[in-house]
């Protein structure tokens, strides 16, 4: 007599099960101890993870709690052990008005080469930055030009051009905050991101 309802209930449970695979999401503290934020949305609801080891679990319902470090190790230890090495950045300055690296920057280039030698399948992005003087269009072109010049120097030093990307970031990422239009040598730099 209740068989029909039972059948419908079972079908609903199965459908519900399909629609909500068992997910576990855990927010980790960043390397420098800061904690980011991840929004988890699901047919059962939504939650925000914004503290270290905050966890969202789905299945029958969406639960928000925390994951223990041992659970993280059990479930994610293998994946975590396969994380690629973190990218590292180096900054180069030029003798004013020339293409010559400063002495300090020559040492920095040696560090870039050493860092590349340590890494699996190393690549770099050479990123040019300008100061706040001049319009974006000019600074974008200028910063890319400077990055290209550094690339050619690095190629001469033996780095394969296939491993080098260049980028011109213009004046979007000043090292030192200055007034708009200000000329500032510390912002006229090239950054090398090794990854």
């Amino acid at each position, binding site marked *: 007599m209740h068989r029909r309802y039972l059948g419908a209930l079972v079908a609903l449970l199965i459908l519900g099960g399909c629609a909500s695979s*068992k997910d576990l999401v855990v927010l980790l503290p960043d390397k420098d101890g800061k904690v*980011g934020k991840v929004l988890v949305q699901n047919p059962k609801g939504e939650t925000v993870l914004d503290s270290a080891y905050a966890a969202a679990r789905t299945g029958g319902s969406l639960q928000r709690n925390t994951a223990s470090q041992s659970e993280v190790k059990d479930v994610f230890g293998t994946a975590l052990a*396969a994380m690629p090495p973190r990218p590292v950045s180096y900054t180069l300055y030029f003798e004013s008005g020339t293409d010559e690296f400063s002495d300090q920057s020559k040492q920095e280039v040696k560090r870039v080469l050493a860092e590349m030698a340590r890494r699996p399948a190393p690549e770099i992005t050479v990123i040019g930055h300008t100061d706040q003087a001049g319009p974006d269009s000019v600074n974008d072109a200028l910063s890319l030009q400077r990055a290209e010049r550094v690339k050619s120097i690095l190629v001469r030093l033996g780095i394969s051009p296939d491993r080098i990307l260049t980028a011109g970031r213009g004046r979007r990422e000043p090292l030192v905050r200055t007034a708009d239009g200000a000329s500032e040598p510390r912002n006229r730099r090239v950054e090398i991101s090794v990854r």
Partner: protein
Amino acid sequence: MKFTRLIDVRRVVLACALSIAPIAAWALDIAQFKVAKGNVYVERGGKRFPAYVGTHLQATDTVVTGADGVAGITFIDNSLLSVGPNSVLAIERYAFNSTTHEGVFDAMLTRGTLSVVSGKIAKQSPDAMKVRTPSSILGVRGTEFLVRTGE
């Protein structure tokens, strides 16, 4: 090798100009395997080939690991991902403008475990990076998190 790559780049630049999409000129290669142990494969255009350290990844590729497989991948915006054994991770959309840092990063974990350190795309715009599972959508505001889906 070199020649075909040049042509590809031109095609991408053309596509870029036509669609006004914020993609970089080298958009074909968006990431590289830094770790590949055990059985690790890339699926691209209906074909499957083994991945090794140094193998490049393109947007819309899928990474598959076997029971003994793990992989670590670094993207051109410095996003880092790794997948554990028995995992299937599809890169559904990826674009990165290295000048403005605008971009989009959509990934889908259909099975297994995933570890993420988000990069410049997520840092620039809070809605630019999404990771999905068959039932959930993760909006990534940053930076380090873990995902498991399935049983």
